[in-house]
């Protein structure tokens, strides 16, 4: 059976050259970067090289602006809490978009319990933040604005430069979560006006276990992990040297191949969506159409009358690895907060899957996915679905292409469950 991996937003395979570069740092060059002898100095050099490679990927003014953490979650926690605590004498108000990653939203929620306040800026039906809404949300107590570069669920590219300009004008630090874009879209922290920006090398063929936080020297930040003075006192704890070395190589290759990867994935993204649209009736793309407002490597689709986890499982049984924002996939039994925020009908949010492409995805892979999804996955699940049958009989209507017959799926679901869907 053919295997097609379409979950590059979760993890990517490590680049062989990154793996080769990492190898000496497990057994031979095992020293602790804080040690002052040959063993320590050797790895200190390796970390400095990686810092420069990562700074280059995002055009950071100085390699010293790069802080290594353990992953994206830690970077987001450090950016949000570190800036909030450092500026609490100036103010206690934060501004974030309502569709940020949970590592951002939950950090903010944590701060709210300690007396900070937050304005969650709404997004439009495609997940786009209006920069003027950010401007309106900023008060004289605002100490941080956080808006991600690309949404992790629906691939929307936010108007970061405009928001960056507003933050600069108001003198408020601006944190950009670039987890879903680094290595796929050009990033220039200076043009963006970002005071802080985070990303994870494992999303662009680097290793797991390392995260990156860029911090402009003008942005005040206090450590949230207390211990030694690693990373300039901003992040205590022994550096994960092999992962940092691998991250550096992955960043260097990503920068070199950025245009090529962008062209390749955006072409296949278009081909995949066109193929699915032409072959699967009652299917909808969530987020912007492929093009300048959408990340090149991800599609978020809702297929009506069938549920997302079932689609994921059926895809997996056919060798296709995808993700889903359906409530059945989440441990909290809630649909993705992003899909809820863009006002997607509950039935469509329930039937949602996310396909994210990579640099090694081929035309044949896309042909295979379109074929299997339209001829096996969807018909098999629709055949089992009472909703599909009830749609055929005019009892319920389609949300995507309404026929004017029958009640909505959501009304129907509320009637048979006795409670409205959340």
């Amino acid at each position: 059976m053919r295997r097609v991996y379409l979950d590059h937003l979760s993890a990517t395979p490590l680049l062989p050259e990154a793996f080769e570069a990492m190898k000496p740092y497990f057994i031979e060059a095992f020293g602790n970067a804080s040690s002052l002898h040959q063993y320590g100095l050797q790895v200190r050099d390796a970390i400095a090289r990686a810092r420069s490679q990562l700074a280059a990927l995002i055009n950071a003014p100085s390699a010293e602006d790069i802080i290594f953490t353990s992953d994206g979650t830690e970077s987001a926690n450090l950016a949000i809490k570190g800036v909030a605590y450092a500026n609490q004498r100036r103010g206690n108000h934060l501004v974030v978009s309502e569709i940020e990653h949970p590592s951002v939203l939950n950090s903010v929620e944590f701060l709210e319990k300690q007396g900070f306040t937050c304005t969650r800026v709404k997004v439009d039906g495609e997940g786009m933040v209006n920069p003027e809404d950010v401007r309106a949300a900023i008060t004289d107590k605002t100490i941080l604005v956080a808006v991600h570069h690309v949404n992790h669920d629906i691939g929307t590219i936010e108007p970061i430069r405009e928001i960056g300009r507003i933050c600069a004008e108001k003198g408020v630090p601006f944190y950009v979560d670039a987890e879903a874009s680094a290595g796929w879209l050009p990033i220039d922290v200076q043009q963006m006006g970002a005071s802080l920006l985070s990303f994870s090398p494992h999303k662009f063929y680097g290793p797991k276990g390392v995260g990156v936080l860029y911090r402009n020297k003008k942005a005040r930040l206090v450590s949230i992990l207390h211990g030694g003075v690693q990373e300039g006192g901003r992040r205590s704890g022994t550096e994960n040297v092999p992962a940092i070395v691998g991250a550096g190589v992955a960043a260097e290759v990503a920068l070199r191949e950025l245009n090529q990867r962008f062209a390749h994935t955006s072409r296949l993204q278009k081909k995949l969506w066109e193929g699915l649209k032409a072959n699967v009736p009652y299917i909808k793309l969530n987020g912007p159409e492929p093009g300048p407002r959408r990340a090149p490597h991800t599609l978020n689709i809702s297929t009506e009358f069938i549920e997302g986890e079932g689609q994921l499982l059926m895809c997996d049984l056919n060798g296709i690895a995808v993700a889903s924002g359906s409530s059945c996939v989440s441990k909290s039994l809630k649909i993705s907060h992003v899909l809820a925020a863009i006002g997607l009908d509950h039935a469509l949010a329930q039937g949602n899957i996310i396909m994210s492409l990579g640099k090694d995805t081929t035309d044949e892979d896309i042909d295979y996915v379109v074929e299997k999804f339209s001829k096996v996955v969807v018909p098999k699940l629709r055949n089992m679905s009472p909703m599909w049958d009830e749609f055929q009989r005019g009892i319920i209507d389609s949300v995507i292409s309404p026929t004017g017959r029958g009640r909505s799926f959501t009304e129907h679901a509320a009637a048979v469950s006795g409670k409205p869907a959340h």
Partner: protein
Amino acid sequence: MSETYTLYNQTVMDHFMNPRNMGDLPDADGVGEVGAAACGDIMKISLKIQDGKITDARFKTFGCGSAIASSSMATELIKGRTVEEALNFSNQEVVDALGGLPPVKIHCSVLAEEALKAALEDYLKKHPEVAAKVQQKEAEKAATPETANA
């Protein structure tokens, strides 16, 4: 990858991949359709009942792998049972027969029990004479000290 890893155990996966009794019964004696408020899944069970016994059962499910497997297993378990027995059906039977479900998915088996009971209610509504008999038996049972829970 040479090995195959599964999200659920082999029995659940088997019922998801090869569901038993999937479909509708055109001349069903009782049909129940219920939805889970928690997650939004929807399940429909159709029953054929003759001489107080369930002779056939079918399901249709809009839901995840464990919801499909739960409804498939419930229809397997219920066939051949009397209406009285079926009214005492518990979701735990589904969980046990499937060899267990992840804690967050237990509600899928509850949905299967609810769909079955909704189908039985539909049948009893159409057959008040059977409903009366069932009620009478229940009352007798409750009045008999030997069978009451001591």
